[in-house]
């Protein structure tokens, strides 16, 4: 360590001036004698060298990263939900590699035990028959999915990715607090925590022997990909969708691992095979990392009220045509009461004692245990036997997960007497404390650790690090984020050099180009509409700018164009009495909504640029005055929209999704210009109307350069309708659509055009042969009709 000489001053560092362990509680930083543990010394010495004035800048670097990366979590309250900043506790938790090996070995043993238990529960039920697990407990669990009983998972394993919540007890040893087998979250967040924390302490982190995380993910990715029988069937993540609190993580992990991100409605079951609805038709999916709770996965055979699932998924699993990570029904292992049976199950099934104990648990369905809980209730947490929450977790309704923390009035006795099988007693958890930065100094806060295990071809791999949760106060129930807790990175520190491998696999053979995956129909639909909404917003803004520019110069009496503009705006649901009309914000929100459903296909910059447009528009709505002020505001909004368009145009990979987005824009643009021509050129013949048409067509400069003669109806029509070189013209937009459509799946099958390809070719030909003289009202009407038809054909062919 480079900062050896500073060690003497470490405890004198102002950061640690108030740090003190608490009696009866283990501390990560200090041992029982109040000395800094060896694993922390280097880091603490390093911290001591940081001038106090510099620390805030370092912390800000991590926060800035999280902000730029778009990391958020969704918080629910009584009214609804909102995206919140990611609550990183900047202090990592350091764990010695030797200690980590012990934890890992214990957790691998536990993962094997869980696999053995779940395969019995869905298999021969020998554990129930022999009394090692009460039959009534299994039967009462809503996570025991009867349609999955007797179904052997493809590949033979139920569990592929599990997590364990662990904590350190007062005597310094680790305890398992809960098993996470349903759809454990946090691994992606752990990665983000690592990147952010490594940025904060960049000069320390680089070159240290802290285990890196990428190797774990790479092996898991390769394992999932290896479970496919056909390489073109992309491994995918099944998410409940953007309203789920962990959606960011689902999208992030999908992007990080190169997996597809699917929702239930993206999938269909055909002939017993799970398939993705894509723009190229139904494409099989063989490996699905399920982040959706089992019960919601299939409305046909599981919870029939589920809106998130896919009818027939259970059938597909039963046919053995898909590997689900983890198998449907694995969630039953999370039941609290199971902890009561794990020690004996381990001896029975593995012939070994649990290497890492879980917190002592008594199921009150047995008379002796019920009696024990009754007698010691004052020192226990008592809660629902089948709950899957951790002992200290608060459920989403805000009520304590622990039904009765303090027994009173004999109520507890009565409940245990009447229906003991519903309850468990658990010893009260004492968590160790770890340093957290509060008001510029380090203070001890309770923490628990989530550790992730992935099954690979070489057996279970433990992620060397984890997802730590740190309490807001000394109260261990305040660990949950929704209760104000924060999260922290976990550094497993080795005394030897560590591998710094990345996600890049060593090349196994000659270079092969990865082909872009097929695009799910729902994503294509959202991209198309994102394109349309963005262009519609742009049109709205141009019209509003034109209106306010003229409003600044006069009234409807002096300038009849205002009347014309007013009508055009009204036809687009824009109420000009407000300088930033509600209709504009509405369309903008539609654009954001479409974008939010395909966030993993977007750069974070693109998403932030869009959000910025909305934020700015909302701010303008509060402050902007009609007239020049509003016109200036619209100019700002136009520039911001162009920023987004620029990102799309310059940075977005030309995959088929980009085509849909571009078709949406071109279609909307052609429609907008056609409407402008109808309103301002074909109709009134008012003074300044031609200039107005050119202005909303954003072609004033070009017109001045192209036509030295005065502006006439024909020069305007020529420029903004028929000019093949003007990117704002109708012909240009239709030609663009033609090109994009020719790249869509099925556009051309052995020279036979698809209905859509025919429709766009016809529209293009109809316009291309017109001259300004023949481009009349009837031609405009026909064009509008053609554009509408194309949208319908596209929808039918690709989005359904």
């Amino acid at each position: 360590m480079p900062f050896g000489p500073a060690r003497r001053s470490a405890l004198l560092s102002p950061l640690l001036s108030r740090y003190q362990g608490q009696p009866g509680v283990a501390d990560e930083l200090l041992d029982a004698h109040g000395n800094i543990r060896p694993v922390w010394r280097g880091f603490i010495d390093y911290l001591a060298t940081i001038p106090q004035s510099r620390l805030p800048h370092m912390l800000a670097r991590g926060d800035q990263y999280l902000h730029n990366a778009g990391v958020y979590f969704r918080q629910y309250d009584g009214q609804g939900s909102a995206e919140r900043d990611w609550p990183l506790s900047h202090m990592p938790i350091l764990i010695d590699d030797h200690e980590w090996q012990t934890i890992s070995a214990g957790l691998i043993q536990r993962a094997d035990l869980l696999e053995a238990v779940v395969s019995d529960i869905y298999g021969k039920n020998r554990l129930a028959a022999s009394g090692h697990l009460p039959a009534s407990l299994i039967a009462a669990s809503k996570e025991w999915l009867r349609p999955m009983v007797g179904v052997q998972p493809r590949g033979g394993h139920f569990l592929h990715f599990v997590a364990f919540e662990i904590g350190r007890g007062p005597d310094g040893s680790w305890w398992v607090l809960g098993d996470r087998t349903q759809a454990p979250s946090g691994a992606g967040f752990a990665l983000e925590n690592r990147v952010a924390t490594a940025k904060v302490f960049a000069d320390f982190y680089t070159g240290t022997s802290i285990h890196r995380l990428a190797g774990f993910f790479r092996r898991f990715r390769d394992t999932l990909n290896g479970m496919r029988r056909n390489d073109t069937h992309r491994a995918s993540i099944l998410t409940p969708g953007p309203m789920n609190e962990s959606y960011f993580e689902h999208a992030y992990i999908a992007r990080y691992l190169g997996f597809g991100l699917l929702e239930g409605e993206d999938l269909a079951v055909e002939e017993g095979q799970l398939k993705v609805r894509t723009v190229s038709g139904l494409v099989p999916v063989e490996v699905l990392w399920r982040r959706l709770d089992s019960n919601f996965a299939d409305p046909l055979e599981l919870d029939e009220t589920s809106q998130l699932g896919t009818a027939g998924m259970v059938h597909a699993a039963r046919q053995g045509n898909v590997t689900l990570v983890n198998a449907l029904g694995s969630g039953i292992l999370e039941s609290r009461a199971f902890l009561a049976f794990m020690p004996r199950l381990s001896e029975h099934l593995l012939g070994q004692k649990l290497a890492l104990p879980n917190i002592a648990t008594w199921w009150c369905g047995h008379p002796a245990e019920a009696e024990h809980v009754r007698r010691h209730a004052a020192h226990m947490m008592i809660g629902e036997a089948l709950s899957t929450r951790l002992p200290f977790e608060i459920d989403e309704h805000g009520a304590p997960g622990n039904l009765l923390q303090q027994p009173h009035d004999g109520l507890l006795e009565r409940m245990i007497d009447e229906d003991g099988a519903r309850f468990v007693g658990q010893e009260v958890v004492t968590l160790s404390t770890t340093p957290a930065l509060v008001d510029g100094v380090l203070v001890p806060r309770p923490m628990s650790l989530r550790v992730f295990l992935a099954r690979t071809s070489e057996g279970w791999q433990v992620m060397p690090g984890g997802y730590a949760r740190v309490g807001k106060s000394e109260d261990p129930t305040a660990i949950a984020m929704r209760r104000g807790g924060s999260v922290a990175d976990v550094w497993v520190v080795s005394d030897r050099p560590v591998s710094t491998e990345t996600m890049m696999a060593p090349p196994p053979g000659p270079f092969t180009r990865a082909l872009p995956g097929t695009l799910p129909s729902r994503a294509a639909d959202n991209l198309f509409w994102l394109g349309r909404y963005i262009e519609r917003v742009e049109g709205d803004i141009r019209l509003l700018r034109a209106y306010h520019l003229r409003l600044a110069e006069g009234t409807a009496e002096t300038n009849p164009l205002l009347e014309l503009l007013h009508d055009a705006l009204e036809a687009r649901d824009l109420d000009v009495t407000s300088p930033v009309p509600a209709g504009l914000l509405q369309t903008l929100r539609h654009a954001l909504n479409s974008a939010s459903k395909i966030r993993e296909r977007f750069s974070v910059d693109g998403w932030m640029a869009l959000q910025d447009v909305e934020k700015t528009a909302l701010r303008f709505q509060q402050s902007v005055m009609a007239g020049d002020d509003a016109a200036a505001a619209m100019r700002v909004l136009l520039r911001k929209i162009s920023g987004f368009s620029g990102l799309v145009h310059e940075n977005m990979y030309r995959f088929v999704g980009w085509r849909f987005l571009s078709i949406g824009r071109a279609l909307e643009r052609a429609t907008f210009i056609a409407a402008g021509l109808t309103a301002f050129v074909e109709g009134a013949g008012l003074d300044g109307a031609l200039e107005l048409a050119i202005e909303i067509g954003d072609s004033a400069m070009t017109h001045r350069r192209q036509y030295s003669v005065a502006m006439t109806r024909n020069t305007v029509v020529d420029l903004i309708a028929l000019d093949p070189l003007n990117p704002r013209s109708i012909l240009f937009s239709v030609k663009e659509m033609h090109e994009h459509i020719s790249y869509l799946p099925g556009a051309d099958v052995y020279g036979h055009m698809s209905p859509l390809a025919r429709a766009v070719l016809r529209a293009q030909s109809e316009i291309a042969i017109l001259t300004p003289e023949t481009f009349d009202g009837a031609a405009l009407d026909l064009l509008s009709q053609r554009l509408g038809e194309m949208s319908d054909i596209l929808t039918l062919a690709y989005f359904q």
Partner: protein
Amino acid sequence: MLYDISLRISYSFGEFTASGSQILRVLPRELPGIQRVIASHLDFQPRATARVDGIDFFGNATVNASYRYVQHELCFTVHARVRRSDAGAQPDMPTRLGALADEIASYRGLDAYSPHHFIGQSQRIRRDNAIAAYAHAISRRDLPVLENVIAISNALHRDIAFDPEATDVKTPAGVAFAHRKGVCQDFTHIMITALRAMGIPAGYVSGFLRTIPPEGQPRLEGADAMHAWVMAWCGTEAGWIEIDPTNGITVGSDHIVVAIGRDYNDVAPVSGILKTAGSQKTEQAVDVIAVTERT
């Protein structure tokens, strides 16, 4: 008794087409010693795009069928010949209600007929204080379980009016009980709720009733569509008995079992939805004819 059974369920969706997947539980099941299926088959008009026959957790016959763009009408027909006999005598030393909990606890299996599936709550059976109080008032812990079951069935038959207009397929048991009105599904759900409140394992049975009763007996309610009744576990020795609260009788040889489960959701004749642009109309017709056997 030997029966010829026919069932016809039709959906019409007017000018629109319909697509989707469904699971059907409409074929009579085998019950060793009690019910034998001699022949049965299920036809679709028009034919299903895909059809997979199977057996569910509770041993019921299922048919998983998918359709794409069915026009105007979809129709299932079942034809079956089934022999059904009486369950036979009850044990000499029946289990008293007060001793039932221990017998349940000593049962270690999770097979389809394990009593553990049928206590506590299930999707359609929730705790209901009014029904529990009603059951408590009728029950006696010192009497055999079967006597308690019959007493509750008789009480419900007496207190609840058969009324096809009062409820629909989604009505919760508590609501039907509060109105003291309903059809066989409501009688069955109410009685299951009552039995489970007393700690008696109870399940839902769907099936058919013979259309024309034996001479001199009244026609039973529920014979013109699929019927529902209750099964109750009366102890290790007595096992399961079937009872029909809608008609206030224990089940003999006039009931033909199609499916068993914890509540309606486990046995629904048709689950899953057909997506269509308009509304859909369903009709059901059942015919159960006793076949005279020459000796």
